[in-house]
């Protein structure tokens, strides 16, 4: 029996405190190499007046622990106290602390850490419990290498849901990447719940000036002000006479509209994720990493509805499925009143993707890794395109293929590579992805393997 121990992690001069371990595997289980067996929350503290490292992620900072080689584990009972003791910091992180026994292990006894960091959209919005639980505007995972290399490969995922499946995976915590990429590596994912990251939106964000950010802030502030000033007593149904003894009215109706507009603003006037540097915990202390060197996008983002704010020129992109269930009528009225819809052709997408690739390459030396569209669908059978009439130009089979062709051609001359999801889906059969976006586990795994192959071809370290 070999005692497995906590790995070295340091935030000097800050201290690392941790919660009890929450087990992910049963005692006696046979586990694979790099398969997380336990997780704990960590928090950094004790730096006096100096800013705490990873300050924006303190509330959702987790360390997963995995053996570096296959073995059978036997839990040490006292390292997990259960209940809230495994959710809040209860003790110091002590490198070398014995936490679990391993049977038939060959190799090092030090557990391998994978650190998860979630930056909450709303800091007070607690959602603890499972891995990266709650809503985060940005999540990331990083882990050290096992071969002594110290240069981290950094990949940013900005795509739509089909890309979240590839990067965050079924577990939503990047575990399938931890299993395959030796590290040191960092994966960052910024989701598109607020604004879809099309090339046009990203390019504008990259080029935004402080004056433009101020103008956007004023525009949103003005709209929120109008919403609030329009409120009368009837705007607070929770306090109406008919609510005195119980009511189904719960949330203040204005809350979601204002909140959505505010989060849209917060993203637009915050740093572009393409430029953002990150802090990580390592055995030797906190390190600052440069902006990502591979930026993963999806062509699906280009197809989202785009709107330009009439006065400021601010461009946003929203998925159509968000209208109604996610974005209320007030925001839709705002879009109608203060924004104009922007119809984008494949030529527009080409122009914006090319410009974005050039700008990213020039500013941070990064490459765009763009997942193409799955153009075919079993049920989209069009034998005679004359029957489509004016709808021809918007036919998904046509636009999808046109966009995919455009993307393939862009790879010739710009810092862009393509993840050919269309080919992967066609190889496995597009029944694996009946709606073109939400793929089966088999197809997601094929896409992930292709992304991994491409990252290696791009010589992104750690992958």
């Amino acid at each position, binding site marked *: 029996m070999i005692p497995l121990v906590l790995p070295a992690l340091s935030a000097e001069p800050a201290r690392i405190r941790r919660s009890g371990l929450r087990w992910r595997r049963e005692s006696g289980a046979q586990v694979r190499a790099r398969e997380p067996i336990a997780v704990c929350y960590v928090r950094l503290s004790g730096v006096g007046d100096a800013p705490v490292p990873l300050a924006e992620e303190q509330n959702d900072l987790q360390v997963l622990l995995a053996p570096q080689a296959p073995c059978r584990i036997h839990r040490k009972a006292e390292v997990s106290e259960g209940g809230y003791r495994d959710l809040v910091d209860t003790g110091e992180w002590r490198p070398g602390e014995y936490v679990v026994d391993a049977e038939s292990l060959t190799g090092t006894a030090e557990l391998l850490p994978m650190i998860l960091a979630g930056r909450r959209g709303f800091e007070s919005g607690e959602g603890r419990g499972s891995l990266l639980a709650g809503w985060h505007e940005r999540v990331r995972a990083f882990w050290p290498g096992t071969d002594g290399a110290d240069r981290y490969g950094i990949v940013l995922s900005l795509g739509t849901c089909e890309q979240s499946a590839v990067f965050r995976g079924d577990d939503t915590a990047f575990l399938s990447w931890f299993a395959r990429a030796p590290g040191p590596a960092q994966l960052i994912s910024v989701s598109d719940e607020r604004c879809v990251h099309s090339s046009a939106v990203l390019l504008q964000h990259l080029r935004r000036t402080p004056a433009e950010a101020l103008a956007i802030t004023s525009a949103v502030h003005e709209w929120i002000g109008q919403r609030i000033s329009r409120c009368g007593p009837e705007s607070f149904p929770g306090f109406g006479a008919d609510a005195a003894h119980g009511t189904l009215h719960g949330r203040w109706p204005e809350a979601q509209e204002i909140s959505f507009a505010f989060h849209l603003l917060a993203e637009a006037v915050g740093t572009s994720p393409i430029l953002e540097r990150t802090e990580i915990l390592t055995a030797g202390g906190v390190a600052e990493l440069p902006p990502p060197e591979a930026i993963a996008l999806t062509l699906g983002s280009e197809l989202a509805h785009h709107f330009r704010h009439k006065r400021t020129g601010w461009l946003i992109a929203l998925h159509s499925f968000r209208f109604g269930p996610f974005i209320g009528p007030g925001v839709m009225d705002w879009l109608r009143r203060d924004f104009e819809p922007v119809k984008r052709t494949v030529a527009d997408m080409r122009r914006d993707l090319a410009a974005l690739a050039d700008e990213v390459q020039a500013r941070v030396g990064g490459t765009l890794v763009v997942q193409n569209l799955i153009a075919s669908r079993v049920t989209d059978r069009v034998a*005679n*395109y004359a029957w489509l009439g004016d709808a021809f130009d918007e036919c998904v089979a046509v636009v999808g293929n*046109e966009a995919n062709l455009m993307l393939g051609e862009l790879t010739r001359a710009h810092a862009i*590579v*393509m993840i*050919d999801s*269309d080919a992967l889906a066609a190889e*496995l059969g597009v029944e694996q992805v009946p709606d073109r976006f939400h793929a089966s586990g088999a197809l997601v795994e094929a896409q992930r393997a*292709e992304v991994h192959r491409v990252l290696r071809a791009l010589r992104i370290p750690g992958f």
Partner: protein
Amino acid sequence: MRPSRRIVRIFAKGNVDVRDSLLWSKVGGVLQWNGINEVLRTRHPHALARVRHETCTRLDLIPLPGETPLLAPPAEVARRLPAKSHPIDRQQRTAMFDEPADVVVLSLQSAATNALVRHRRDGWLLLPDEIETWDPELRAWLAQECEYAGLADIDVVFGRLRQLIPAIEERTGAQVLVYNLNPLTPGEVTHCWSGAEDSIKLRVQRFNLRLAELSAELGFSIVDVDRVVASAGADHLKVDLFHLRAEGWRLLAEEVVRILEERGCLDAAAS
């Protein structure tokens, strides 16, 4: 009284895709798929397809009615060189307009993928079919006399199709169906074409898109090989860029029958 049998006359001008799906597919002499009549037998028992097949050197070389092919090799060259699947004296001729047909089937395959050679002095074009089986002497002659002429220009191909399809409809009264092409070669995934001349995949995608545009303009039907293969899975259906397994040929034949149903070509044979 037994209903009379409806004969659907199909003129299929194309190569392995139209032949193996509509007529038959054999591998090593063993029949894998027995053509469109297998589908008709089940779905339209009173219909029978009579398929006449002609290979296609390249779509852009099919002459219009009354047109004399100007780039055909002279007769003595045709006699001298081996006649394989694309007999040289017929590479730029067609019997398509010689007889009535209910359906004419064309395919993009030849236009997207067949590279020709050009006679250095006289400029005629030919497809040196199965050149690896030619005598070394003939191969040397070809190398000396001819130069590589490459693949067809997409604009030339679609310019010809724009003339050809109305001519077929007018001359024969046939419905025109055109096979597109699935661009996948199993096991090949490309993420970057930087530095590459052109790729067959991008070329096929371009041809497929142009075909959809032309279909919107002229109203002919596309046999969407790309969608049919993608639906069932290329891993499962494809052998290489051109060849499908029997299941694939069957699915294509079924798609052709579906289009013929849509087009009313089998109405008289409805059971």
